[in-house]
């Protein structure tokens, strides 16, 4: 076994996120789901790179990019420059990608992550805008000969590249950063976060160094990591590979590697000598992108509360525990629903949160529905919560009321009344039922009397059953005890 602890990984991530604009980065073509649309149906001469065509910047994409830059605490550069990144590949119709290089839109930010070790900030080097490439589909003909088809639906989609400093020192930190960034992009409404559709893609730069050293080792870049799981496996393997190399007297080469899902290993794509010279130069077809203070201020106005801030606030304001707050904040509509409901009921936040994450989510699972498909308003849920809190219905009944409310949109009060679900808290009524039950089960009663005390639970069940679940459980428990002991 090698001793991994003597080395420390240094990881930097480049995250490519598609922007959820209506049209592409430089033309009017609609943005379509390229995993589902018919190939080459959202293509025009511009995104097909036809000779003579020119790009025009999509202002919505710039606004989204500013939004992300601000959310990450970046400086928004008043002037940024699009450049051409030159390389040949059949999925790149112009033979160059319009990107930003020396003068990106946003620079010098950070993102707070939460790990077991607590909260810390990961520095963001830059956020820049570029266009996506098309997609190649590799096939074989009947004779077994390989051929490739090009789908340009994705070509020209607006893409954001978000680059960290080499600030991540463990797989846990890397995962936390990736998940947090995804959450931020979703909350900003600029990216769906649907990893399986490839709307967020990663490239990782990894080096290792003796723990505690300040010097960076030779860096290896792993390209085309399209899911959290793949990224984790690839980086884990790469750390292990580099560690083993160093421990056995080998040398880590600066190179670009790819990850093979099947073998779980990284493989060399390009050595340093074969590295592309992209020959960047300013895109002459686009004037410098000028973003005035007014525009930045306007976008700043639209910034929502960020996930990490919201989680902390949910904890502090409502007394939730951290996992609860994280669960709610994972989807802002859920957290919004929680907060609105909370403002209308005296039910403690922690209890209400459980009602949502347990019962509401159980309904979603059971019915195969989305959160938004539940027909309950915060006001309706607050009504039910008050009924529970004041003892008008018991917990078990309330759960079934909630399900019916979510199905029907009928409010709790009406469901309780029309179906006679009100909790029975009448002393005499409950005692009468208890006596009847005991009277009908003399054998069990005798066995209880001679020491089989666990039969109390059985009697409790019988009483609840007899009242259709409506009896106040606490009262039943207390009165049953008295009756059995008589």
């Amino acid at each position, binding site marked *: 076994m090698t001793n991994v602890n003597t080395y420390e990984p240094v990881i930097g991530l480049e995250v490519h996120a598609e922007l959820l604009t209506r049209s592409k980065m430089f033309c009017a073509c609609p943005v379509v789901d390229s995993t589902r649309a018919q190939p080459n149906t959202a293509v025009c*001469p511009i995104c*097909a*790179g*036809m*000779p*003579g*065509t*020119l*790009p*025009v*910047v999509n202002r919505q994409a710039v606004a989204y990019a500013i939004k992300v830059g601000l959310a990450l605490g970046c400086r928004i550069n008043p002037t940024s420059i699009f450049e*051409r990144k*030159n390389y*040949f590949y*059949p999925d790149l*119709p*112009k*033979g*160059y990608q319009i990107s930003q290089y020396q003068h990106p839109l946003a620079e010098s930010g950070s993102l707070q992550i939460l790990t077991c070790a607590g909260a810390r900030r990961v520095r963001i080097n830059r956020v820049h805008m570029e266009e996506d490439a098309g997609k190649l589909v590799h096939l074989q003909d009947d004779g077994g000969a390989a051929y490739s088809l*090009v789908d340009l639906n994705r070509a020209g989609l607006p893409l954001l590249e978000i680059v960290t400093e080499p600030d991540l020192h463990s797989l846990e930190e890397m995962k936390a950063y990736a998940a947090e960034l995804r959450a931020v992009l979703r909350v900003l409404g600029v990216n769906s976060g649907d990893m399986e559709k490839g709307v967020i893609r990663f490239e990782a730069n990894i080096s290792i160094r003796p723990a505690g050293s300040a010097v960076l080792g030779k860096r290896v870049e792993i390209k085309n990591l399209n899911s959290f799981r793949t990224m984790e496996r690839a980086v884990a393997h790469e750390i292990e590979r580099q560690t083993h190399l160093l421990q056995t007297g080998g040398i880590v080469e600066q190179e670009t590697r790819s990850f093979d899902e099947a073998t779980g290993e990284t493989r060399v794509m390009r050595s340093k000598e074969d590295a592309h*010279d992209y*020959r*960047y*130069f300013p895109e*002459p*077809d*686009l*004037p410098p992108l000028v973003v005035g203070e007014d525009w930045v201020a306007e976008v700043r106005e639209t910034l929502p509360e960020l996930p990490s801030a919201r989680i902390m606030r949910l904890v502090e304001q409502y007394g939730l525990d951290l996992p609860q707050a994280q669960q709610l904040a994972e989807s802002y509509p859920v957290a919004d629903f929680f907060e609105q409901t909370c403002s209308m009921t005296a039910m403690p936040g922690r209890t209400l949160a459980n009602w949502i994450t347990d019962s509401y989510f159980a309904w979603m699972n059971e019915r195969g529905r989305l959160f938004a498909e539940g027909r309950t308003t915060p006001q309706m849920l607050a009504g039910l919560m008050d009924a529970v809190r004041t003892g008008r219905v018991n917990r078990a009944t309330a759960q079934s009321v909630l399900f019916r409310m979510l199905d029907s949109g009928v409010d709790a009060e009406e469901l309780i009344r029309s179906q006679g679900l009100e909790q029975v808290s009448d002393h005499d009524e409950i005692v009468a039922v208890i006596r009847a039950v005991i009277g009908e089960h003399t054998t069990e009663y005798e066995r209880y009397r001679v020491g089989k005390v666990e039969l109390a639970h059985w009697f409790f069940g019988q009483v609840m059953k007899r009242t259709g679940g409506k009896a106040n459980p606490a009262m039943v428990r207390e009165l049953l005890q008295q009756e059995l002991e008589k």
Partner: protein
Amino acid sequence: MRDLCLLSVGEMLGGMAAGEFTSQDLTQACLARMAALEPQIHAFLFIDADGAVNAARAADARRAAWRMGDDSLPPLLGLPIAVKDVLMVQGMPCTCGSKILEGFIAPYTATPVQRLLDAGVVIVGKTNTDEFAMGSSTENSAYGPTRNPWNTAHVPGGSSGGSAAAVAARMVPAALGTDTGGSVRQPASFCGVSGIKPSYGRVSRYGLVAYGSSLDSVGVLARSAEDAALVFQHMAGQDAMDATSSDLQVPSYTASLPQNLSGLRIGVPKEYFIDGMQPAVEQRVREAIAQMEALGAQVAEISLPYTSYAVPVYYLIAPAEASANLARFDGIRYGPRETGENLLDVYHHTRGGCFGSEVKRRIMLGTYALSAGYYDAYYGQAQKVRTLMKRDYDKAFEIVDVIAAPVAPTTALRFGQHTDDPLAMYLEDVFTLPANLAGVPGLAFPVGFDTAGLPVGMQLMAKPFNEALLFQTARVFQAQTDWHRRMPEQGG
């Protein structure tokens, strides 16, 4: 019957409006003249005879259906023109004079062309060009050179040589050209016609197959400044499809003319009269300047000290941009695809086999100039010098209104004169490159002939977006002279 082909644009439009002849008559006359002269001249890469006649017929029908009180008819209705083969016209081939675009049919129409179509023109065909507009003679066309109508042993200039020759030979009254380093003005000068190279950003580049994107412009070649202005009027203006097009208002280019040039300050840059230039060129240009002075202009010698850097600066910036612009021609989507063992082979064979030597030379130059470790010394430095050249012009235009200079150091070269010496060929562009680098407009027009009977041209340059002053000055000059009325015997 008079030869309709010899009329000016104004006369053609007037004649059609007056019902003296139809667009069909005119278009047929042009097509007949093209058929007669093309074997000697080869100005066209594609002639759309049927399409042109149909368009002319449609124009005539529209005119016939017009009634008093209707919206006015399109201003250029029925006027036949030609379009340089680097501009997209939907449904027509667009080869850019290159094998690599053989068989490519334009899927859309360039903005300046579309604006002219909206103004009513009839497009008769696509004119020859040096491959991807890289050249000064049309000798770099993959489809054979165009010949100068004044003397077919000479080149027509380039790269818009097809357009210049077609206009000079009176095949069409006007033709679109493009000018990246002199490609409208130099062939206009060699062929004795008038040609406008607009300010950068005055005319949309959408649909112009890019060569040097920060230098490219779309202009017009015609027999006179007035004819050019009549057509240019309808091309200029901002275009949402071109982010580098200017939102400045387009003034009238054909407004009423002053009687003379009094009050006009003309600067004559001493750097444009160099050792080794053909004496006849200097003489004719100085005579023309003297004539302008006689018409009331104040003439002063000025200096544009950075002029001598134009050739090295241009031949770094234009090839650098071209190296990226031409990357899309990789055999995957357009033209012929050569076979190969692997993808890289396909690229190499297709590009190696289908680009001509001048294009390959410039792609290599540009690729080198942008390479890691060389960028600052070449491309970066060239951009800095370009800024200084712009300042030269800014300063000059503080003291003069227009700059008058020769277009080229010589009259039309013989075929093959510089084909083995690319550098000598590049130096032919020394007087035209600065306007592109500075983004200022230039207008070339004929001012006489050399001893061999070849036309000599002069150019006027003005502040960015002051094309109106160029048209006005040249029109006053042409009202007093008849150089622009001379035509080659070929077409006589």
